[in-house]
């Protein structure tokens, strides 16, 4: 085989094709065979596994029940696969259980104890599977599988693969041959073409393209290279031609630019120049020099001294030195100077100079001269104008201002004179400013009547139009004044009328020349401007004078005047304003009027004020303002806006008058009136309440009297009724006494009788009277003396007693628990008059801060509801305070709501120096509170005319008892509540517990919640049972009011029994029987432990004791023996729960607690009844079981 390098391209291609396809095929065939081998193994194992798993599953029962025959018949399923050589079933103890085929002799290799899985060995596949039942291995199946069939299949696979490989190689060789040819041809052609080009240099030669492959691309690349060489030659030639063309164009452009520059230099309105820096000889001057100064450029260029020669002699030295110095320093510079033109005119030039170099390297100056003559003149006029305005501003008088104006005008032209003439009321001209004219001329002119042809000025003023007379000598207007003009060397006169903004003629401004002259436009502008300025000056001066006069008037008025600008900044105030406010004018200027704001007005008022005046209207009103010294005053204020001609607001004027005294008077009148009204109202309220207070005890008295008359009462009941009548009578008397006392006090008719009296005896007396009340309520009343107490004092004992009685009685009334203390001490023993001080300290409900202020006022009760709740007239404190004041002292109070109050009373007690002083041990009085005796005693039912359950809502205890007594006697069951809120609660609760009241008797006037509110509330929540109103108000319309609140009917107090019964019966008829049924048939109470037989005996024992306990409880409550009651209840509480009666324990606990805390007897009675009822029910239940 020839070496690689020597091999032809053809052979290389052939070898490459054969090797590539051959090795690829070989690798593919090998991979396929290996895959096939693996797959055969795996499929065999999985196929056999499935078969074996089925058999194993079917073996579980045979193994469980030890049935070898059944197992063998299951194994026989393998006969469908001839490849299965043998199968065995082993038990878990590795003993052989069954074998397949049955005929086959047991071979030694068929052993038990193999682990589940599969193995290949000796041409066999051995598969082991466990037989599982209920997660427990109960045996194994072992299968032996012959692999001969598998190996046969593999052999045939190899043979086929080798044949296919050989065939594939042969085909590859055949296909390679034509490809080889197509590859070789283009390469050969390319080589031939390259050779030809290098020999001939003909770049036009191209190679043919045979295919789109890489060789085709090579041919394309070769062709492209050859054509690029060809193109480059052509483009080099083109570039040379283009360059020549561009040089020609640029030359033409430069020539055009040069022409343009020349044009600009000629057209620009300035002299552009260049000169030698040393010699100042001009090397260039633009053509404009001729127009501006009148010198031809030839004059400029020839003479080094030319520039200096044309400068105005006054400016020459300055201009030259400026230029020399700047040039020496090498600085660019600019300066202005006057030059004399060829025609002798003076021209202001502004020369801007730069230092530079010319082409030859020598230093040159280049510059621009601009004609600024006009601007200079303008500046001068503006300065004059400014000067005139300054003078105006300074407030100079009119002739002075106008003279300055005239002089300014005259400065504009050297040979011109100027004058201002003013028109007076008689249409005559008056000299105002003519400083360049002699008096003789002025006197001749002054007073000339204007007319249609009266010189320049007279005509101009008459026509209100400018009059230009260019030549006086010929103009007809000057006919009458021509001589005068000649005399004073006047050749021309131009006159401009001075007009106001609305076109009124004020006078004329005139310019005079010695020779005839026609005005240039600039001069006309000047005269017009001067006339305008004059108009301004005249008007300003005149209005200033007017303002002055006004200001003087304003200053003289008595009202405060304030003037502000449109932004509200103060411009002016008058002395009266300063007098009202206390601010000087200096302090006010520049401020705003809001420094007067008092803060007592709403912002809304100011907003409305500004809204009004900004809209251009006048605002008037009364405001409270603040002076500089922070005092307030009432101002009647009027503010008007000030408008200019266009209607814009330029400021505001406010006029105010101090009306404090007037409003104060009005206010006092109003206060007095409202106080009188309030007093009247209070008195009416007071009377209304008094009538109620008087009527309440009256109701009780009348009611019980009726009882005494009508019923056969027991002696006890009779005594009780009489004592109630007596008590109410006493109460009535006390009320009437209080009212009388107060009336006397009010009328100043109460007399004071001072005598020496024993103060401690008085205190002890009052305390002993009131202590009973404290003890009844269950708290102590204590008295303490601090320090030394005089044996006797000088005072009115009756009134002192009254004061103390009121204060202590009051304290007891408002205290529920805690204590009431009276603390007394004496001060000022060594002074002329000593004082006794009494402090009454309680732990009651206290008084809110708002109520304290009204506490001592007559006819004003702290709280109407409270008073009613605690009884009394509510006048005690008022009376006490008045009395204390009459005794030279006072009554004061400190209080914390909910904690208690301390009332302090002081009285004068006269000279103490000769009185013996005593020490009193602190008295502590504390008696064990007694339980009040039971008042109620329900006797046997004698009259059975009323049945049902009634709720009585009534706050007066006497009425409670009276009404309850009547009703109970008639056979009704009555429950009592003392206010509307409790009534609502009780009614709803009864409804909820299915023991509703058949009827509610509702007093209409009750504390906490009155009867109207309670009835409304009940109806709101859907309570539908009858409610009967009870009211002491015997006024017309009351019935309607009750019905409107939701009551079914109405009964009046004092109670008329027959009427009441009739009303109740009418409404009770419906719901009586069912209610009664429920009450009389109690449910048996069964122990929770009743079902436990072991408890039966104990329960029996417990219940057998029960009647004894019940009677014990009843005895104790009848005897009011609270200790025994508490003890018995305690025992019952302890044991009942243990026997399965928690409800009895609970009830017993209530009784025990109430008995220990001395609760109200009727409450206790009810609790005992409940307990006894429960006990009886328990016994009854047991008996029936």
């Amino acid at each position, binding site marked *: 085989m020839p070496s690689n390098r020597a091999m032809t391209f053809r052979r290389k291609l052939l070898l490459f094709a054969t090797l590539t396809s051959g090795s690829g095929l070989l690798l593919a065939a090998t991979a396929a065979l290996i895959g096939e081998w693996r797959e055969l193994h795996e499929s065999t194992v999985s196929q056999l596994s499935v078969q074996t798993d089925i058999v194993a599953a079917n073996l579980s029962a045979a193994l*469980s029940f*030890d049935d070898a025959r059944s197992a063998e018949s299951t194994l026989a399923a393998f006969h469908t696969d001839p490849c299965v050589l043998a199968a065995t079933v082993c038990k878990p103890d590795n003993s052989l259980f069954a074998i397949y085929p049955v005929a086959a002799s047991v071979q030694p290799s068929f052993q038990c104890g193999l682990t589940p899985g599969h193995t290949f060995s000796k041409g066999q596949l051995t598969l082991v599977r466990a037989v599982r039942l*209920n997660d427990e291995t109960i045996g194994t199946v072992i299968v032996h599988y012959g692999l001969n069939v598998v190996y046969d299949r593999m052999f045939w696979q190899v043979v086929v693969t080798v044949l296919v490989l050989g065939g594939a190689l042969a085909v590859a060789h055949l296909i390679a041959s034509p490809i080889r040819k197509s590859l070789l041809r283009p390469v050969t052609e390319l080589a031939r073409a390259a050779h030809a080009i290098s020999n001939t240099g003909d770049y036009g030669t191209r190679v043919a393209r045979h295919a789109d492959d890489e060789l085709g691309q090579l041919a394309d690349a070769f062709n492209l290279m050859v054509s690029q060489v060809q193109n480059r030659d052509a483009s080099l030639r083109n570039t040379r031609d283009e360059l020549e063309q561009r040089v020609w164009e640029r030359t033409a452009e430069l020539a055009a630019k040069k022409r343009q520059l020349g044009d600009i230099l000629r057209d620009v309105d300035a002299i552009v120049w260049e000169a030698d820096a040393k010699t100042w000889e001009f090397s260039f001057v633009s053509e404009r020099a001729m127009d501006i100064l009148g010198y031809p450029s030839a004059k400029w260029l020839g003479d080094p001294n030319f520039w200096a020669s044309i400068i105005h002699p006054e400016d020459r030295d300055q201009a030259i030195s400026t230029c020399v110095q700047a040039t020496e320093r090498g600085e660019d510079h600019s300066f202005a100077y006057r030059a004399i033109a060829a025609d002798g005119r003076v021209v202001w030039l502004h020369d801007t100079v730069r230092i530079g170099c010319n082409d030859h390297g020598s230093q040159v100056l280049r510059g621009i001269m601009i004609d600024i003559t006009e601007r200079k003149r303008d500046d001068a006029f503006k300065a004059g104008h400014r000067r005139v305005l300054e003078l105006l501003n300074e407030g100079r008088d009119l002739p002075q201002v106008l003279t300055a104006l005239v002089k300014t005008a005259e400065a504009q032209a050297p040979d011109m004179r100027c004058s201002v003439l003013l028109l007076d009321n008689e249409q005559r001209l008056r000299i105002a400013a003519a400083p360049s004219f002699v008096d003789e001329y002025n006197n001749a002119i002054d007073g000339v009547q204007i007319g249609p042809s009266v010189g320049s000025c007279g005509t101009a003023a008459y026509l209100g139009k400018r009059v230009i007379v260019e030549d006086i000598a010929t103009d007809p207007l000057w006919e009458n004044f021509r001589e005068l003009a000649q005399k004073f060397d006047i050749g021309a006169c131009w006159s401009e009328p001075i007009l106001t903004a609305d076109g009124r003629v004020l006078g004329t401004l005139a310019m005079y020349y010695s020779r005839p002259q026609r005005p240039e436009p600039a001069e006309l502008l000047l005269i017009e401007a001067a006339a305008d300025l004059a108009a301004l000056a005249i008007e300003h001066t005149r209005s200033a004078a007017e303002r002055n006069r006004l200001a003087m008037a304003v200053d003289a008025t008595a009202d405060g005047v304030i003037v502000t600008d449109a932004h509200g900044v103060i411009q002016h105030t008058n002395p009266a304003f300063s007098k009202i406010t206390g601010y000087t004018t200096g302090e006010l200027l520049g401020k705003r009027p809001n420094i007067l704001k008092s803060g007592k007005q709403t912002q809304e008022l100011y907003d409305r004020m500004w809204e009004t005046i900004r809209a251009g209207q006048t605002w008037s009103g009364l405001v409270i303002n603040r002076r500089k010294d922070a005092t307030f005053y009432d101002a009647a204020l009027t503010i008007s806006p000030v408008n200019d001609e266009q209607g814009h607001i330029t400021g505001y004027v406010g006029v105010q008058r101090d009306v404090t005294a007037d409003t104060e008077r009005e206010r006092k009148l109003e206060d007095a009136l409202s106080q009188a009204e309030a007093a009247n109202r209070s008195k009416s309220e007071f009377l209304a309440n008094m009538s109620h207070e008087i009527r309440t005890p009256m109701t009780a008295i009348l009611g019980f009297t009726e009882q005494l008359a009508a019923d056969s009462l027991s002696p006890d009941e009779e005594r009780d009724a009489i004592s109630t009548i007596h008590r109410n009578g006493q109460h009535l008397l006390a009320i009437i006494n209080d009212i009388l006392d107060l009336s006397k006090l009010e009328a100043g008719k109460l007399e004071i009788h001072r005598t020496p009296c024993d103060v401690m005896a008085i205190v002890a007396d009052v305390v002993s009277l009131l202590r009973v009340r404290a003890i009844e309520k269950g708290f102590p009343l204590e008295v303490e003396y601090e320090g030394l107490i005089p044996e006797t004092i000088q005072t009115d004992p009756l009134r002192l007693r009254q004061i103390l009685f009121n204060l202590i009685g009051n304290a007891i009334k408002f205290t529920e628990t805690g204590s009431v203390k009276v603390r007394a001490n004496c001060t000022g023993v060594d002074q002329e008059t000593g004082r006794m001080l009494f402090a009454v300290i309680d732990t009651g409900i206290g008084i809110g801060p708002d109520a304290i202020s009204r506490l001592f006022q007559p006819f004003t009760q702290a709280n109407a509801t409270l008073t009613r709740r605690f009884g009394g007239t509510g006048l005690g404190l008022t009376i006490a305070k008045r009395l204390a004041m009459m005794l030279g002292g006072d009554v004061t109070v400190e209080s914390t709501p909910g904690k208690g109050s301390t009332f302090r009373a002081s009285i004068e007690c006269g000279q103490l120096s000769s009185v013996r002083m005593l020490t009193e041990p602190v008295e502590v009085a504390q008696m064990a509170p007694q339980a009040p005796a039971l008042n109620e005693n329900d006797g046997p039912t004698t009259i059975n005319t009323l049945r049902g359950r009634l709720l009585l809502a009534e706050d007066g205890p006497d009425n409670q008892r009276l009404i309850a007594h009547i009703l109970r006697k008639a056979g009704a069951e009555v429950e009592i509540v003392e206010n509307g809120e409790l009534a609502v609660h009780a009614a709803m609760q009864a409804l909820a517990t299915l023991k509703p009241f058949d009827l509610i008797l509702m007093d209409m006037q009750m504390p906490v919640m009155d009867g109207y509110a309670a009835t409304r509330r009940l109806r709101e929540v859907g309570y539908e049972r009858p409610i009967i109103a009870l009211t002491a108000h015997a006024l017309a319309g009351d019935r309607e009011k009750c019905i409107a609140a939701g009551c079914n009917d109405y009964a009046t107090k004092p109670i008329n029994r027959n009427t009441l019964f009739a009303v109740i019966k009418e409404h009770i008829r419906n719901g009586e029987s069912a209610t009664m049924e429920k009450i009389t048939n109690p449910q048996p109470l069964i122990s929770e432990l009743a079902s436990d037989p*072991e408890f039966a005996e104990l329960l029996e024992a417990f219940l057998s004791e029960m009647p004894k306990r019940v009677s014990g409880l009843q005895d104790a409550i009848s005897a009011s023996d609270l200790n025994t009651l508490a003890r018995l209840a305690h025992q019952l509480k302890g044991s009942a729960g243990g026997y399965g009666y928690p409800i009895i324990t609970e009830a017993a606990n209530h009784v025990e607690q109430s008995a220990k805390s001395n609760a109200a007897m009727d409450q206790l009675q009810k609790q005992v009844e409940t307990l006894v009822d429960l006990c009886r029910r328990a016994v009854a239940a047991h008996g029936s079981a």
Partner: protein
Amino acid sequence: MKQDCNLNVMKRFRTSLVSLVMACALLRAVPLHGQSNEVDEDKALKVKAAYLLNFTKFVTWPADVFEDAHSPIVIGIVGIDPFGSILDRTIKDKTVAGRPLTVRRIQWRAGESTSALKQCHLLYVSPSLGDGVAALIDAVAHMPILTIGEGEEFAKIGGILGFVAEGGRIVFWANRKAAEAAKLQLNSQLLKLARPIEDVAVAKD
């Protein structure tokens, strides 16, 4: 009270102890099937006990007979218990489909309440019941209870499975209709091993 309570418990305990001892004595005193060889008898009992356990694996009860997935399978022995402690040992710590097994011994006479029987899932009916066997089969015929007794006759009169000793092996007869009436599903493999009893009526309702 408390003392009384303890006393009661003690009494109860004592009573059950005595009855247990008596039962044991009785068990030893009465031979089964008149087999004299105690060793063979013992072996047969072991096999039967194992069968009782295995039966639970091949029987499906209606789902509602168990309270939950872990409620035990209760094997009841009615009449004199021939197994002694063998059955208890066999089922000790065994679970079937996650359920433990318990053995309950029940004294039952014809006409008594079936409430105790009802709580069992499998009842081994001891031949000591005599005539009571047929009554019991009648009583539980429609309850989901696998009844197992002795002899082909047991299956023929409506019992579900009946043990028979045959050539030193214990085989059993199965009454498929009885099983169907009891709403029990017997595994087909079990039925293949059992001797089938056909055309025998189940106890009527």
